[in-house]
């Protein structure tokens, strides 16, 4: 992807966000008219900046932008992160996190099971002791209940 096409993609994203903000604020009730006015201002400014970015000329020659250096690993990480997010409410934080770290570590090429499991146990044990036991942070338990 070239720098100018990356800029155009960002500009399109900015415009999309501005439209979404405008539509969101349009549905605010009358009592929140001031809040809506502020959102309209932000949406308008974002739209103008996106349009400027869209039409802005890049000094030639247009350089290549390489976002992802390893497509396989990047895709694996993205998919596993997404699955992890979906699993937390169902499986609970600790089993989902353990599974996430084990699967991601293994798929990214870490082939020492003992150290992988030991690392996971230490991290999750630490999180449990500090956050769950001492600080009492509510942690999603999923199917295991409260």
């Amino acid at each position, binding site marked *: 992807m070239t720098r100018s096409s990356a800029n155009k993609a*960002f500009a399109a994203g900015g415009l999309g*966000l501005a439209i979404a903000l405008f539509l969101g604020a349009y549905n605010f009730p009358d009592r*929140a008219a001031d809040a809506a006015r502020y*959102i309209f201002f*932000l949406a308008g400014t974002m739209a103008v*900046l996106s349009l400027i*970015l869209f039409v802005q000329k890049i000094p030639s020659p247009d350089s290549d932008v390489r976002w992802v250096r*390893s497509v396989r690993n990047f895709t694996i990480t993205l998919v596993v992160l997404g699955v992890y997010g979906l699993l937390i409410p169902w499986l609970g934080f600790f089993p989902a996190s353990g599974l996430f770290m084990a699967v991601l570590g293994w798929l990214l090429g870490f082939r020492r099971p003992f150290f992988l499991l030991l690392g996971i146990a230490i991290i999750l044990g630490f999180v449990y002791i*500090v956050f769950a036991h001492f*600080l009492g942070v509510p942690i999603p338990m999923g199917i295991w209940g409260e």
Partner: protein
Amino acid sequence: MAEFFLPAVMSLMNPAVLFSITVGTVVGIIVGAMPGLTATMAVALLIPVTFGMDPLVGLALMGGVYSGGMYGGAISSILLSTPGTPAAAATAFDGYPLTRQGKGGVALTVATWASFWGGILSTIALLLMAPALAKFSLRFGPPEYFVLSIMGLSSIVTLTKGSMVKGLMSGFLGLVLATVGMDPLSGFMRFTFGSMNLFDGVPFMPALIGLFSVSQILDLTAESHIVEDLSKTISSIKRSKLPKGLGPTITRGSIIGIIVADYNFSDVPV
């Protein structure tokens, strides 16, 4: 002021107070280095522990935890690019690239010295200016808050490298994110999608950790090692010395920090 200063210094020489400062600083560094736990949170957690203590020992313990926590945030910021405390977010910009070059020890040494001198200078400034600042803070109203917010936003211009349009878009994206949650004037819930977790807005620490850590995870997928220069050993990192010529930079940073902290003293979010 001198009549209060000397007895205060003398009371700090008490072994129990010195011990509590040491323990507090060590605990603070550990807590500060953990992403998700801030120095303020550590002090809040410590309040029940200090109930049974002598007031001076308790205050020294909390001061040690707070100071240690503020420094500890730089450790994870430099080594993992994940700020331990919100104040250490900027440390990751320069500290983590040094770690990747195998100069993590140097970065930590600089952070330690800068934190020490920054702490000493800001304490002196607080001692000298606290009464005047306390009076001044009472005169702060909405216009002053507004002007300071504008000043904070104008820093986008100085922080942006390259495209100014992208810098401004990033700044406005931040303002858009800040609209999530309850509108302070009407009480209307904006963009919360019915989630109670968003009623108070996007929480700062999770946003910070997500912004730095998740992007870091994705960035590191193509790497086999975080540190590019593996010739450095752990012992060489421990022996890292402070590079020469940093005195003026540390002094300048301390003065800027004191000014920013003065704004915070006036309860103004800059």
